[in-house]
């Protein structure tokens, strides 16, 4: 025995049972959030899965970087305003939700992985929450991220960065609030719509259809109505909601001739509707998943 050991023999130790730490439900939720966040950007997956997220990331960061570049020559006044930038990115955020929410939840259903997840020590609603949180976090990368680029850019292109920071830092709250609310709002709608689809393609189509149809229907409705109904109808328009909310956060007066300007609704209304829709969609999503647990 001793000689064999000295000669560096290989031992078959047989099966090693695991005696180490075992974490609980919250660790499982955190693991799934982390994993799904990576999935949303195609990390750890084939190149094909990376193309759409990479394209969208490029489309939101490049303009922000170019803006900062231009401002470094032309001065801080040339920088686009945060809320205008958020409005510009709404279509891209919606596209991100349309292409990635199916990757997060429909793929699991389509490929049967959901049945494995459900056999692990956490609840079906935990699964849904983890997926929604992962999508919101992923969307913050493409909403909050570029705004922070603009923020940092604005400070460093100014003559005195320290002074610029002192006047600019309060903008961080509306930047965070606006992008967080927009991300939650679109992610909740995207996830709920995707949860009805059996295939990824259908889910993407339904989310895109929603964000194309809802504005079109609202515009049609507004064109045939007048007065208060017409004014309040813009609360059913996802893009107006986000823009109206951002205007309110940054304390911007909308153009008199724009739809939001003419509707002239109190800014909180936009917040309430977005919050309400987000909560309702999340509740419906959880309800759909709760049925999967005995």
């Amino acid at each position, binding site marked *: 025995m001793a000689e064999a050991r000295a000669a560096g023999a290989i031992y078959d130790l047989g099966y090693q049972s695991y005696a*180490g*730490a*075992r974490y609980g439900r919250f660790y499982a939720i955190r693991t799934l959030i982390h*994993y799904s966040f990576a999935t949303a950007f195609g990390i750890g997956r084939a190149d094909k899965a990376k193309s759409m997220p990479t394209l969208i990331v490029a489309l939101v960061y490049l303009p922000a970087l170019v803006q900062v570049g231009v401002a470094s020559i032309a001065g801080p006044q040339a920088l686009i305003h945060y809320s205008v930038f958020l409005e510009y990115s709404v279509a891209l955020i919606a596209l991100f939700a349309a292409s990635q929410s199916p990757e997060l939840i429909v793929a699991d259903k389509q490929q*049967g992985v959901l*049945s*494995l997840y459900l*056999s*692990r*020590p956490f609840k079906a609603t935990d699964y849904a929450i983890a997926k929604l949180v992962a999508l919101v976090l992923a969307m913050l990368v493409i909403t909050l991220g570029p705004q922070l680029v603009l923020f940092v850019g604005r400070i460093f292109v100014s003559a005195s960065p320290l002074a610029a920071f002192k006047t600019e830092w309060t903008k961080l709250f509306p930047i965070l609030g606006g992008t967080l609310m927009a991300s939650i709002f679109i992610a909740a709608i995207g996830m709920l719509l995707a949860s009805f689809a059996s295939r990824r393609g259908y889910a993407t189509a339904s989310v895109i259809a929603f964000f194309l149809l809802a504005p079109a229907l609202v515009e049609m409705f507004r064109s045939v109505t007048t007065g208060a109904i017409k004014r309040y109808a813009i609360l059913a328009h996802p893009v107006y909601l986000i823009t109206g909310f951002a205007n309110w956060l940054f304390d911007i007066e909308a153009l008199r001739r724009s739809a939001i300007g003419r509707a002239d609704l109190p800014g909180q209304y936009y917040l309430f509707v977005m919050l309400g829709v987000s909560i309702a969609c999340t509740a419906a999503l959880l309800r759909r998943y709760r049925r999967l647990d005995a």
Partner: protein
Amino acid sequence: MPLISARELTKRYPGVNALDGLTLDIESGIVGFVGANGAGKSTFIRILLGLLAPTSGTASVLGFDVRADALEVRKRVGYMPEHDCLPLEISGTDFVTHQGQMSGLPFTAARERGAEMLRHVGLHEERYRLIGSYSTGMKQRIKLAQSLVHDPKLLLLDEPTNGLDPEGREEMLLLIERTGREFGIAVMVTSHLLGEIERVCDSLIAIDAGRLQYAGTVAAFTQQTQRLRLEVDDDAPAFAAQLRARGLAVEAHGGNELRVDLADDSVYDVIRDVAADFAVPLSRMEVTRHRLEELFRTPTAGGARG
């Protein structure tokens, strides 16, 4: 304490009873859970995992009630579903590691155990390949690996040989046997093919239409399910009638062929006596097996329904 225990477990769907007052205790070892397709095997497993609520009755796994302590059960149980359950766009090692983490293992431990289990099922070389590029046999094996990654006390394997070619089936059965014997993990493996799993099992549970048909050792079951195939040269119906008159369960199989349940060795004596008394020429007599489907569907079997 039994590993799995069910008392009057019933699951009713509109128009059909998936489980019908199932009462059983499963002890450790490798247990075969057999029944025809639709007999209620998957329903039973889904109830054990807390994924389905029984209509009535109770069940417990490792002493934990499946309804009240579903998460405790899931911590200790490994599950290999019958159907596809693999993400195709990630690598084998990433998948198994992730599933280990989902069961509560820290990342490093999940990674190590994942690698170990992939080695166990023979996928060590292919661990960095995307699962989508795996063959059916490899997919089936990685399903087994993920069910083992968190070192469960009990494995629930639902039709693990499904869709495999004969060689793949053989490999899978060998893996299951090794897992049960060398790892000391209790295994419940379902199959609709009795002949296949009885070789690796210590004991058998047979259900049909959600009812328990048999629970006991493999040997006793084999005996219970053995039949004699007889071929007589003339007047098979009359011969069959004589055998029935002496209490044997006989089934005509067209032409001159009869099948007789082989309850014990006295059956041979009865056949010999009847053949001698009536001078019926017996041209063939051999032991065969019931197919699982017919075992419970013939009027001669225990829990027969119309």
